[in-house]
């Protein structure tokens, strides 16, 4: 009798999960005891960037992985390179997040760096342990609200504590990235930025 009910539950549950999906949260948030509202600086793959934007805590969306069908995985950060057709291409590291608990009001913080046209994903490894100042000529920061045509452009700094990508197949790379950042958009400032991500092949998109 119990076996019958277990089978029935299983047969109903599978199609339900196939339609609705079942996600695992792969973001681990450990509150910083010394900075209210943001997470600690870590390099253990917590899949998170937190910072203050004009002194208000901001964090990236949770990384969700579907285990049966939809929803599609969601990632909090993407590393992309776009061809410009000139001698320099654009490398973008783009984080999607929100203020406090207002998950509906999302925005993107993006760091854009000018790189040589032959720059590959594994060339990123040379940035590990380095600080980069984005001051306009070599790159800049963008702050853009989702679905709203307002983009702020600013300067800032990035420190990559870890940045290791390895090839896992043709055009596929995975690894880890952690570090610190700050930015100044003139009308607003990003301070105390810290990020820590494991990077999967879907997050590295190089043209």
């Amino acid at each position, binding site marked *: 009798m119990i076996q019958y009910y277990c089978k029935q539950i299983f047969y109903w549950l599978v199609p339900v999960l196939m339609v609705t999906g079942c996600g695992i949260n792969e973001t681990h948030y*450990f509150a910083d005891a010394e900075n209210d509202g943001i997470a*600690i600086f870590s390099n253990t793959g917590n899949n998170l960037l937190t910072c203050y934007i004009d002194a208000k805590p901001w964090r990236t969306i949770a990384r969700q992985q579907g285990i049966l069908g939809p929803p599609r995985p969601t990632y909090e950060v993407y590393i992309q390179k776009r061809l410009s057709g000139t001698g320099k291409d654009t490398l973008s590291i783009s984080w999607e997040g929100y203020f406090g608990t207002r998950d509906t009001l999302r925005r993107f913080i993006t760091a854009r760096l000018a790189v040589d046209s032959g720059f590959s994903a594994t060339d990123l490894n040379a940035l590990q342990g380095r600080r980069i100042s984005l001051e306009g000529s070599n790159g800049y920061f963008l702050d853009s609200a989702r679905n709203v045509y307002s983009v702020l452009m600013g300067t800032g700094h*990035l420190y990559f504590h870890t940045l290791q990508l390895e090839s896992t197949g043709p055009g596929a790379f995975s690894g880890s990235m952690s570090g610190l950042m700050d930015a100044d958009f003139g009308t607003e400032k990003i301070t105390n930025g810290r990020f820590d991500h494991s990077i999967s092949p879907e997050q590295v998109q190089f043209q």
Partner: protein
Amino acid sequence: MKKILPLVIAANLLFFAAVAQVYIEPIAGYQLDINNKDFKQINSAVQIAFKKNNRYEFILAAQVSWPLSYVSGDSAFTANSSLPVYAPAEKTILPGSFSFSAGHRIVLAGRNSANKLSLLINTGFTAQKIKVRYAYDKNNYTILNPDQTQQRVNIYVSGGLEYMHLLKSGRLFFQINIASPPAGKQIKYPSSFKFMAPLNFNAGYSIPIKK
């Protein structure tokens, strides 16, 4: 439970009625930690021993373990290009605890001599607080993988051996005890330490207070 409770109370009253001698026992000692080799404490405790016969004593104990600070180095970083990328940070950990327990002193050898070897078994509540403090330039730098203060109150068990020597006016004893950490799941934080499993070396003196 309601039926059992009067029986338990009656059994305890019978036990205390049968007590031959009561001792008060101040204790002092030194404590290491099996789970974190760098954590050390100074112990102070007081316990009351209810001697039933020359084979068994019931003990109520309260113990405070005073932390000895453990200082180590950690790493802090900054994105600000006008400062050095790395700065050292000093981390101080103060691991302290308090416990209240009920226990048993079971004489294994030397029941009728001046030198006794006993087995100690205790159960009770323990409160552990592992305090973490950092000293670094907090305005410009960020600590990588910082530790945070952790605390827990829960039940624990301990066991050990005791050598006791009878004197004219009291009893001198030396104990070695090992205790479990407070019960519960692992710390929900990426700490570099665990809750303590103390190994203590104590000396105490039994002062008879009632016959």
